[in-house]
């Protein structure tokens, strides 16, 4: 491997994901921004909502693994070495964190709109 630059990385991902390449980061940013907005608005974390979001997050982790299994026609049960477990953990982690933040933000935005909610 001679050169290993970001351009090749992007090109391959563009080819692999198509428009999803831009939709996924957009979703991530939207989630983060609304999460931050909700935090600022409420001046802190609402712990009950956080717990609920974490439950959604755990499911999100499994959903991410399910998606990978579908795309690769295989599954984490095929993991055969340390790097595989790392990958499984990474995919699960991304799904968990992403779904948690998104779930928290969505609930927050709804609560914001209907201030009697909490």
């Amino acid at each position, binding site marked *: 491997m*001679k050169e290993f630059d970001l351009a090749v990385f992007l*090109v*391959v991902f563009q*080819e*692999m994901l198509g428009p999803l390449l831009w939709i996924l980061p957009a979703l991530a940013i939207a989630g983060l921004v609304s999460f931050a907005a909700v935090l600022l608005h409420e001046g802190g974390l609402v712990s009950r909502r956080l717990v609920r979001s974490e439950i959604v997050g755990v499911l999100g982790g499994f959903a991410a693994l399910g998606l990978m299994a579908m795309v*690769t026609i295989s599954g984490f049960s095929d993991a055969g*070495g340390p790097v595989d477990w790392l*990958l499984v953990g990474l995919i699960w982690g991304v799904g968990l964190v992403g779904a948690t933040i998104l779930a928290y933000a969505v609930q927050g935005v709804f609560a914001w709109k209907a201030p009697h909610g909490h």
Partner: protein
Amino acid sequence: MTNEVPPRDGLIAGLDSPLSRRRMLALSGAGAATLMAVSAPARAAEAPPKVATKAHIVIAGAGAAGLAAAARLAERLDGATITVIDRRKEHYYQPGFTLVAAGLKPQGYVVSTTADYLPRGVTLIEEQVAEFDPVANKVVTDKGRAIRYDFLMVATGLHLDYAAIEGMSTDLIGKDGLGSVYAGPAAAVVTWKEMARFAETGGVGLFGRPATEMKCAGAPLKYTFITDDYLRRNGTRGKSELIYTAQNKGLFSVLIVSEKVRMLFRDRQVKVAYERVMTAIDPGRKIATYKTPTGTAEFKYDFINVVPPMRAPAAVRNSPLRWQEGVWAGDGWMEVEKPTLRHKRFPNVFGIGDVAGVPKGKTAASVKWQVPVAVDHLIASIQGTTSASVYNGYTSCPLITRLGRAMLVEFDYEDNLVPSFPGVIAPLEELWVTWVMKTMALKPTYMSMLRGQA
């Protein structure tokens, strides 16, 4: 094989340097796995200014190598006339054939249209080159059209010589337990049907490879492993016998890989018959005949994956471009310099991809490394300068060892393993991550390569 030592270049040194290793480690996990795919090519350094020229460049063959070369030349030259000649309208993503023949992907996964990848300004002539005349700097097509060139890139791939096996014809593929993953997208589909039927009933499965050079030497091994896995999943492995016939005393040209495969075959109870080269097949009686060091041997089969001898296409084989002597003369491979892919006797001619008479590497991964180097040298010739670009023989093969796992095997001209991710993804280890790459990232990387972007 010659003993000539190719010049060492920065590729291997670069890989070993702590900096590049750290960079790779930083990108570990899914991202890294995706990227390594067919391994990043030698890219032209930050888009140099276009080279103005009136040169006429002819590219024979619009497969992986021809299209990638056309894209790169069109990108870097201004005013050149670039003509691509290929009769076949469809483009085949051949590394996907194995997945089709494993029942995991549909036929459409490997078929697209050549014209879709043609860079703007490049002319496609939908004919076949019938004659190469490098002395007169021209090619003649099957329609009798003579085309002169200043530079020629030969990227005709190779010829699958089914006729060399007595009794064999591509019409037999998909009938009576006879499969052949190589013959094309439709053959891959019907091979899957035959293999799936075999996996339900069990019986004797026969695998092997030809004695000639071949593309993707791992493919016959992969298909053996995949069939073994399907038999196990169906509970028919116990009443089955899988036999792999090797053309010599090894299972792979790189010794360390050969040994690893031997151990895997032992683990999966695949029997190996060494020094067996298929010479004939009787599809009615389901018997394949092999040449052995002492005579002939016959094997009965219920399912067979026929991998035919491979040679340079007739137009190249019958031309002055072929090796004149040595191991590659017989099958007509092109006589090119190993580090540059430039023809040894006709300096305005390059041979890239499967047709090149160099050791190892008839893979799309090799193409990815060869094309930028050959293009650099061609453009240097146009400019009257020289180029320092070197191809070190890099080739790679994600060797599927069961459904859901593969081993990444990467090596060079000298049989050195050249892992792209040392310390992260171990070579010769059966991993899911390698399978993930094969199914997710390989095709996008290949497609980007066709467009000259990767």
